[in-house]
């Protein structure tokens, strides 16, 4: 079974193409454009203003602290995926980052681990699939969540389940909801400079976002290899 899996992964690796400038594989473009427009409206009404207010009201120091907590809670997923990718070094780095930041870093508020030389490199299941060579995927846009691929969507699901903070026993539902909201605003705020720049410089927002997303995911996967 393992041999079959490895062989098929290798075959797919040979077939998989890098998302370069040649042609971006977007067979669902009409639907995607529709969802992208929808997302833009929702983003404009809810998420972006929330992020802008957050950025305007909370000083950078405070926002960094929140980001640190959010990133810290994401470390277990990185550990799991680094193991899946056979990256023992990053698995241990991430594990130690989690331990150090949760203790010395006061529940993740301070990134003490970086001071000691343990730099963050987050991994998710979408990247794991790419490292395994399985990412021959069309591009699609998820409602609300935005750009994705087969691997990234699978990744979202897998990451949800492999995140110990989402388990019923560990934490309660209110925490998970709260954490998800904070995570969404944190991520949106961090992406504000990027989205503002893309909006400003692109002629077709849809094409620019798609290209930036696919290139970025590809490069993240290459960094993991």
């Amino acid at each position, binding site marked *: 079974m393992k041999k079959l899996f490895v062989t098929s992964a290798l075959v797919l690796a040979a077939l998989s193409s890098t998302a370069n400038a040649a042609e*971006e594989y977007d067979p669902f473009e009409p639907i995607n454009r529709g969802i992208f427009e929808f997302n833009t409206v929702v983003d404009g009404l809810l998420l972006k203003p929330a992020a802008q207010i957050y950025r305007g009201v909370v000083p950078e120091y405070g926002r960094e602290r929140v980001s640190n907590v959010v990133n810290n809670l994401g470390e277990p997923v990185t550990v799991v995926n680094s193991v899946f990718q056979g990256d023992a070094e990053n698995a241990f780095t991430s594990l130690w980052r989690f331990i150090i930041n949760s203790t010395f870093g006061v529940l993740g508020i301070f990134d003490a681990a970086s001071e000691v030389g343990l730099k963050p490199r987050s991994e998710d299941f979408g990247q794991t699939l790419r490292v395994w060579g399985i990412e021959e995927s069309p591009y699609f846009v998820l409602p609300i969540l935005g750009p994705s691929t087969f691997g990234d969507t699978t990744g979202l699901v897998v990451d949800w389940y492999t995140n110990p903070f989402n388990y019923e026993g560990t934490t309660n539902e209110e925490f998970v909801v709260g954490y998800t909201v904070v995570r969404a605003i944190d991520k949106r705020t961090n992406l504000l400079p990027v989205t503002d720049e893309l909006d400003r410089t692109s*002629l077709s927002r849809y094409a620019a976002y798609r290209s930036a997303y696919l*290139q970025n995911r590809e490069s993240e996967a290459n960094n993991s290899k």
Partner: protein
Amino acid sequence: MQHTEVRIYKIANLKLTIQNNMKLLALIITLLPAAAFGYECKSPEVFAKSVSADVVKIVESPSSDDTKEKQLKAMFDEIVDTERMAKFSLGKNYRNLKPEEQSEFKEVYHNFIMATYIPSFKKYNGEKVEVINTKTAGAGDVIVSTKILGKSGPETLINYRLARKGACYKVADIIAEGVSLINTQRQDFDSVISRKGYPELVTLLKSRSKSQ
């Protein structure tokens, strides 16, 4: 005896002066392309360092925004290869254009890039640029990795693709977080061409060059 010595000394001095002048002339010739500004072309790393130093010097100077913009624009043409970027951004569509259309596009693209990216200097807030390393890429290009250090700490990694141009280098692409500017532009422009046609692309680029 003394007389002869003085003569020899004088002749030696004359030789030295000629040698110095030759060295000076050689120096001027090698620096001629860069003579307008301070940057050097010895190596991609040296080039990157001196260009960023020059840009910071212009932006930090006490002159007016208009003066700074003019200076940056003058520098821009020497260090950015918009012609190559223009061709790449159209991809295979470039070959389908007539020669007049091709030259028109190169100019429109050039103005678009200048109008879009030069005014960003106004957002400068004391950032420092650090050149980290260089790596050869395909076709004689070099990728220079730089780190932008913000005042309060955030670091941004930006890579520049430099192409050899004559005795010096020119920027052919900017890559951040794995996202290449010209790759993104190629997808962007291709989308406009296939949905709205090439003339619309030119119109959009022209209008963006005015309203920035």
